[in-house]
């Protein structure tokens, strides 16, 4: 056991002395966690508003009112422009979209039940297609709010109905629905005349509200809420990168021992092959544990990352360490030279990180990639950490990710030690 401890101590000392080792195990993961944390935290800030240009070619009060609402909305940052300026701003990438209110917009704003509806043109930056649907949704939302307001006000509603009747009367007789619509508008006009005044207030609003959405976070546990901040999500990712740094450093380190002859010297000493590998595994395990603790404590004290359960966090950390020690041993067995081991190592680790949500969150991925992520230990590592930090997993819920991680570790370690070639 003394020899195993000495081996582990020596490897940890070398890790500390290697600047690249410290960079890839602590500094780089921390930068990732902070960088992405700041990006995601910025999503709720004014700077995260969608920049649009608005062109008012109608110049009606209704168009002015519509634009004013866009300007005061929390989703958009609006600048007014003419058509040429607006398209130029989009083309230059300075605005994501240009929204044109063509002539007739105000006139059509009074039409809901019959006739041509309001029409908008949205010119979108082709490279920002992802925001296109979001912009359409937000414009529909504003239109729905306008409609809700009109329908909640009895006099506005009656004006709207009577305008529709006028439009209907001037419509050609070939319109087969004319009679049906006229009957409906008549009934509606009658309803607005005879409905009790008490029902025109709050009740009317509720009746004309197209959809009521209540957002509720799906979490449980002692915290019983959603992630406190974006760092709750990005620190598990950062920790994963720190672990990957450890795995690569130790995996290549074992190969270096072989190429630099120290492995031969160790094999010539009275320690057994098993003790030798155990020492390496212990060193890697300890390094992964230290990296996890260090990064988590940095997150805890500087970025308010707090676990829902310390015990489950320790369980997650241990499971992750076991999994990645096994992977480290596999990488050490893959290459004869440091270059080969580094190449093979990154070839293994990059897909693990990519498909496991280490680079981009799983929810952003297409379905097939997300499914492929089930085969990545990184996914289960992040899930285990999130489960202990903010998802509020119970012990039973933690068993699945932790069990998978331990299994991966055992299998990889067994394969790696069998495939590991002694120095001579």
């Amino acid at each position, binding site marked *: 056991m*003394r*020899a195993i401890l*000495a081996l582990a101590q*020596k490897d940890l*000392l*070398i890790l500390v*002395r*290697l600047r690249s080792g410290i960079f890839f195990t602590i500094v780089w993961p921390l930068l990732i966690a902070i960088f992405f944390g700041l990006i995601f935290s910025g999503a709720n800030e004014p700077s995260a508003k969608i920049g649009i240009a608005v062109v008012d070619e109608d110049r009606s009060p209704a168009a002015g009112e519509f634009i004013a609402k866009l300007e005061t909305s929390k989703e958009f940052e609006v600048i007014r422009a003419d058509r040429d300026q607006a398209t130029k701003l989009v083309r230059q990438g300075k605005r994501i979209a240009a929204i044109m209110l063509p002539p007739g917009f105000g006139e059509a704003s009074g039409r809901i039940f019959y006739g041509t509806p309001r029409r908008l043109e949205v010119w979108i930056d082709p490279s920002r297609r992802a925001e296109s649907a979001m912009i359409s949704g937000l414009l529909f939302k504003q239109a729905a709010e306008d409609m809700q307001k009109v329908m909640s006000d009895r006099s506005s509603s009656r004006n709207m109905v009577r305008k529709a009747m006028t439009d209907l009367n001037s419509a050609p007789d070939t319109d087969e629905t004319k009679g049906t619509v006229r009957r409906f508008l008549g009934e509606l006009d009658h309803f607005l005349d005879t409905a009790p005044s008490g029902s025109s207030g709050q009740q009317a609003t509720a009746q004309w509200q197209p959809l009521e959405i209540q957002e509720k976070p799906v979490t449980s546990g002692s915290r019983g809420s959603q992630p406190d901040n974006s760092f709750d999500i990005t620190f598990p990712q950062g920790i994963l990168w720190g672990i990957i740094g450890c795995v690569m450093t130790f995996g290549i380190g074992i190969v270096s021992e072989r190429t*630099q*002859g*120290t492995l*031969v*010297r*160790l*094999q*010539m*000493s*009275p*320690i*057994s092959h098993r003790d030798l590998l155990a020492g390496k595994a212990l060193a890697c395990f300890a390094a992964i544990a230290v990296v996890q603790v260090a990064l988590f404590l940095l997150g805890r004290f500087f970025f308010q990352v707090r676990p829902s359960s310390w015990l489950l966090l320790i369980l997650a950390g241990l499971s992750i360490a076991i999994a990645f020690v096994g992977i480290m041993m596999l990488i050490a067995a893959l290459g004869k030279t440091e270059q080969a081991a580094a190449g093979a190592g990154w070839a293994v680790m990059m897909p693990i990180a990519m498909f496991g949500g280490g680079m981009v969150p799983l929810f952003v991925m297409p379905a097939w990639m997300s499914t492929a992520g089930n085969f990545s230990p990184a996914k289960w590592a992040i899930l285990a950490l999130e489960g202990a930090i903010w998802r509020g997993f119970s012990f039973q819920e933690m068993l699945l990710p932790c069990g998978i991680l331990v299994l991966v570790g055992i299998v990889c370690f067994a394969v790696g030690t069998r495939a590991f070639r002694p*120095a*001579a």
Partner: protein
Amino acid sequence: MLKFAGIHKAFGRIVAVDGLSLEVQQGEIFGLLGPNGAGKSTCVHIAVGLIEPDSGSVTVAGLGSPKIPEVRARIGVAPQMVSLYGPLSGTENLAFFGRMYGLAGRRLADRIGSALEFVGLTDRKGDLVRNYSGGMKRRLNLAAAILHEPELILLDEPTIGVDPQSRNSIFENILDLKKRGRTIVYTTHYMEEAERLCDHVGIMDHGKMLALDTVPGLLASHGGRPTLVTEISGKEVRMETSDPLAELNRLATSGPIGNFRVERTTLEQVFLNLTGRDLRE
């Protein structure tokens, strides 16, 4: 101290050691001389139990195979490749290797101090090994081999890439170890090193032991006779003779001799005579 009996080892189709038998006595320096690829390092690896021979047996200190950890603990090895950790200091390297041999506490500290002093690195003990010169690394490589006071020390070409000053220092260390009763197996392809240090020398080539004797014995049995080189009438005349002085007297009676010298046979000549080729080919 070390006994090889009919050792045979092949790597695929390449025969590295072919029926090797030898016995190294306690307290002597035994030289394994041969060109690169002769099988010397394989012999060292077999002697320390790193490689299992295909056939034959190895016995260390009369205790058994070096595969047994307790037996292996009695052996110290300075591998041909400098096998040290660059990011660690000299002291840290020795402390680590000492712990691999079960040393700890006060005894470990004492042994580190002695080993560093022995190889003359006390004043650089705190420096990182990656900042050492080649000669210093070789000396620390030797210190790591003797740290646990082994009875049998295997030195695999310990002077490769070393400057003359460090080489002399290593030679002195080796002779000092012999004085302390240690048994040393020294592999080299430098004949002058074998001549200077070794009590017995085994000459190897293609995995076979071609000859094994003391240096004078090898010279006598395989080196041929000394060569008398004379200058007579401005011409150099060379002649092999078992009695150069008598031959010189005979020549002097027949005319004046401008200059003369006697060329003794060397292990280089022995190797040439045994194999028909030069040691460094």
